[in-house]
């Protein structure tokens, strides 16, 4: 998940669709995010590269819609509803996720286990 500035970023992503849950007058997704280009990347416990300023999932509410949809703690959000999340401020990320007129968010997330799974599957089934 490390990136070289100026080069396109390649990642294996998983598509997750979360239906927002209505609680009172708020629509909640059931997870917490951390990170952003205006934050300190060295304090991120989930990233491999401590200069990565992307948005990470730091907490999942058990039993919430995010948990049910398959989001896991430590996931890095790459896209939210088509909007890029790799170069945004913390506040911009929060706004993209909490739009009041949307009740579904479609995320592209990546995690290290995905890459390893892909490598394993490629290794298990070598091309003939």
């Amino acid at each position, binding site marked *: 998940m490390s990136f070289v500035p100026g080069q396109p970023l390649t990642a294996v992503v998983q598509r997750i669709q979360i239906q927002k849950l209505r609680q009172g007058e708020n629509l*909640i997704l059931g997870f917490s995010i*951390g990170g952003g280009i205006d*934050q*300190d990347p060295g304090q991120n416990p989930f990233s491999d590269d401590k200069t990565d300023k992307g948005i990470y999932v730091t*907490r999942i*509410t058990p039993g919430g819609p995010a948990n049910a949809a398959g989001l896991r703690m430590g996931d890095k959000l790459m896209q939210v509803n088509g909007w890029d999340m790799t170069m945004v401020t*913390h506040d911009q990320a*929060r706004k993209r996720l*909490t739009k009041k007129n949307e009740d579904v968010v479609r995320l592209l997330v990546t995690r290290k286990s995905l890459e390893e799974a892909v490598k394993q599957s490629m290794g298990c089934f070598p091309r003939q």
Partner: protein
Amino acid sequence: MDTESTYSGYSYYSGRSRGSHRHGERSRDRHKTRSKDSRSEKSVTINTPPAEPLLGDSAVRGEQVQDDNWGETTTAVTGTSEHSLSQEDIVRITKDLEDSVGLDCRRYFTLALAVILGLLVFLTPLAFLVLPHLLWPEKLQSCGTACEGLFISVAFKLLILLLAVWALFFRPRRAGLPRVFVFRALLAVLVLLFVVSYWLFYGVRILDSQDENYQGIVQYAVSLVDALLFIHYLAIVLLELRQLQPCFSVCVTRSTDGEIRHYNLGQLSIQRAALAILEHYYCDFPVSNPALLSASKSRAAKHLAGLKVYNVDGPGNNAAAGLVHSQSRAMIAAAARRRDTSHNELYYEEAEHERRVRKRKARLVVAVEEAFTHIKRMQEEEQKKAPGDVMDPREAAQAIFPSMARALQKYLRTTKQQHCHSMESIQQHLAFCITNNMTPKAFLESYLTPGPTLQYSRDHWRARQWTLISEASVTSGLKDGSVFLLRCVDFSLVVTTKKIPYIQMSEEYIDPKSHKFVLRLQSETSV
């Protein structure tokens, strides 16, 4: 009938604008005679008077209340030019009045009073010291060492007092103010009372009793001189120091073209404030040019020019005031409903004028630069060789002036400044610039922008005799919101004052060690 006059008014107006800018305007008189072209102005009975009529128009309107036949205005036009000339005559007469006897009487009277008071003040201590020796010399105790030391003290203090009075009071008069200068009068009265009381005491206690203690008398004289020095200190504080601290901000507006300047003044009486403002006026305000105002005046007159008001009920039907009101209301309503395209004309006229001025300026700059290349300063070693045609600055200026004269004259006519500069003054300025090694651009600067009034010769000032018009007494002090007018023949300066506010400042101490920074922590937001 109405539409006819409207159309003719417009067509003649556009003709006039083209004509006047093509041919230029030679003098104020020619400019006044051009107003005859906008004849639709003359044939209207206008009830709302314009703000400031042209010098000629007021006379013409007065004569032509019922005259619809514009052909006869030509005879009245010569009356217009005569009026403008006679106005100049009046100005010349008032200039001569300045040197008349009546005003000098007051000046000499105050001067005589001041001299008498000064002599009294200076001779009194000397008289106190000398009179005992003259009147009872044999009874007088001889003067010891301390007493003679006091003589030196009296002498030097009198010398210092003399110099101080000369420095403060014996300065050339700046102005003649309408009312007496209150502080000076009060000080004169104080000094007079003081000296008189000292004389009384001296007369009663010393002369009558013929006191023998000469040292006491000398000390008495020394105390008089000390007290006079303190009164002089009071004079400095009251006359000079008190108004130094700025207290009011005055806004001075010229009524004709709206030039505004702001000045800071201290606590002054209205007449002294007016004097300070006038001295700033001569240095700061660009010279008043009435030729620049004619366009807006003609526009203002034209606004109501296209309308004619007919009294169909016949004269003498209504009361005069009621008729006037109804007519003016009708005209305002009609003017509001009429589709007015004068803004369009103004825009294009100004754009055209701007373009013309820039073209003339470009030609002028080129002509002047070329003219300056024709002469060069002769060096020292060349002077010894004695070549043929050596000129002094005046002759050099006269030699190169003809090549730029035409361009300069055309430019001055376009910017309506031609009456401010005579040919003699231009040649003088050119000789001055050549002598001081100035570039052509430096020579031209005084003609490109109108300078302050002081830079021009006295005939062009149009601001010599000033009248102070004020609702409050002119010797009362300036207050917040006081308004007064300074009027001269052609225009007036409107002065408003505002008090500089009281400033309350508090302090906050910042410890230099308190500037510390940390990195922002990872914030976590739940969505």
